[in-house]
């Protein structure tokens, strides 16, 4: 396998309710930004991660549509889907194509246009990431599934509402420093606890928002990157990918995200590094409880200790394990198919030293964790300064 580098990253200037932009507009804007950032004049191939453009906008066959509108007609293009892990899976797929030696310059991106439908329809579309016949049929929603994880975590480990809320408070504080964040506003624990209930114990401020957005990265062989790139190449040092039952009921412990644990283990092994070597993390905080469960599954804290670690500030931008310095899904927004791709965009900017006010000093190595459904899939990437 060849070493693979990231030579270009791009996203929309700001995520949110992009009323004036269509699904293709959003994707092409982000992809062009990545192409410009990489300074390449062509692509050898492309992967588009998208969860549910069919339900959100009535459009499928995105790979061809997007390659055409990107001005790259005829290139081999592939759409990948793994619910909210679609973006991460697109990056992994592009990585394999470059690493294998099959093609050189590959774009991996993700997109979701979520605001063309009503809230009820969006809830339904997102719900298709659960088991439709045995969860959705009974009225399950995504906040509901994560709320069940939260309830079990609280009962088992004594995790509190305040600990959950602190995840949102921290990520909003981080998002204040990110120009692309959908919600750039500081919030307090009390505001989270006073916000409207969605699925007990999760309030609306425990939930990531409905967002339009796209992000893209350009990969090429590391050797080529060193020749053609004017920027600091970032190496994809480790890749891990795992699945689990999509039915929460079929997991022995609903508080434990085994797919994330397995993907992380594989990525660490491939990179030949350990947790102490990682300077910052971007993780899938679709709900506040998700970040807590993820940092336990990644092995950053002991089982059941994530709430306490968060309250102590260990995961803050200034803590010893900075998590979601970008603002996370919570503040930055969560266009589901794009989230996994923008995590790589953010970490590449951090490792290049381009993260502005939120820059983590001397960041050399970073980890991204992207998750589908209630943990039915997970993709982990470890990036490092090449």
């Amino acid at each position, binding site marked *: 396998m060849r070493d693979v580098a990231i030579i270009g990253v791009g996203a929309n200037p700001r995520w949110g309710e992009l009323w004036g932009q269509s699904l293709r507009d959003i994707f092409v804007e982000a992809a062009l930004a990545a192409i410009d950032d990489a300074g390449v004049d062509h692509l050898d191939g492309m992967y588009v991660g998208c969860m549910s453009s069919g339900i959100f906008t009535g459009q499928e066959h995105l790979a061809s549509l997007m390659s055409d509108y990107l001005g790259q007609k005829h290139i081999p293009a592939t759409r990948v889907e793994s619910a909210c892990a679609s973006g991460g899976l697109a990056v992994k797929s592009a990585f394999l194509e470059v690493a294998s030696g099959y093609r050189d310059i590959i774009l991996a991106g993700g997109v979701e246009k979520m605001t063309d439908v009503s809230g*009820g329809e969006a809830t339904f579309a997102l719900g298709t990431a659960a088991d439709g016949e045995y969860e959705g049929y*009974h*009225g399950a*929603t995504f906040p509901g599934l994560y709320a*069940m*994880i939260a*309830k*079990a975590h609280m009962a088992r480990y004594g995790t509190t509402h305040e600990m959950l809320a602190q995840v949102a408070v921290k990520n909003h504080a981080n998002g204040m420093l990110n120009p692309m964040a959908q919600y750039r506003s500081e919030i307090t624990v009390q505001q989270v606890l006073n916000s409207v209930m*969605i699925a007990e114990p999760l309030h609306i401020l425990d939930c990531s928002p409905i967002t339009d957005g796209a992000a893209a990265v350009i990969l090429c062989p590391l050797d080529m990157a060193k020749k053609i790139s004017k920027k600091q190449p970032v190496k994809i040092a480790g890749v891990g990918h795992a699945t689990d039952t999509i039915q929460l*009921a079929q997991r022995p412990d609903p508080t434990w995200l085994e797919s994330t644990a397995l993907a992380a283990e594989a990525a660490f092994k491939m990179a030949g590094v350990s947790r102490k070597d990682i300077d910052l993390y971007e993780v899938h905080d679709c709900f506040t409880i998700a970040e807590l469960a993820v940092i336990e599954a990644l092995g950053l804290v002991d089982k059941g200790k994530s709430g306490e670690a968060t309250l102590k500030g260990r995961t803050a931008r200034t803590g010893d394990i900075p998590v979601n310095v970008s603002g996370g899904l919570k503040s930055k927004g969560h266009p589901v198919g794009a989230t996994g791709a923008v995590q790589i965009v953010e970490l590449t900017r951090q490792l290049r030293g381009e993260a502005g006010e939120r820059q983590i000093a001397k960041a050399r190595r970073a980890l991204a964790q992207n998750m589908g459904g209630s943990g039915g899939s997970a993709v982990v990437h470890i990036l490092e300064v090449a």
Partner: protein
Amino acid sequence: MPSANYTREIPQRYRLEASRCVKCGQVHYPPRLICPGCRSRQFETVALPSGGKVVTYTIISVGPSDFAAEVPYALGIVELEGGVRLMAQIVDVPPEKVSIGMPVTLEFRKLYEEGKAGIICYGHKAVPA
């Protein structure tokens, strides 16, 4: 056309039929074609017991369109006698009185309707035992 899909699931939805692996004895709900435990492909059909307890739950205040009129409703994971777990609404009890470990029994109920003119979708919900 939901009716073919609906009719296909009737044994599981109406009678809680599950598959028991003849080799290792594990019971799967819904039924599977290969046992994830021992890889056997031979199963016998068994009906799940109706009694169990709540493993975890939530109270949904914002529901999908089909369930919008029923909020707030409690939804949980129920572990049935014998260990099989499934998701079910917990009804006939004020949602705030639901608790982890609460004994429940499954009862036949209407889950939702496919609009005013479509089919009526039945299944089971958990009620206090």
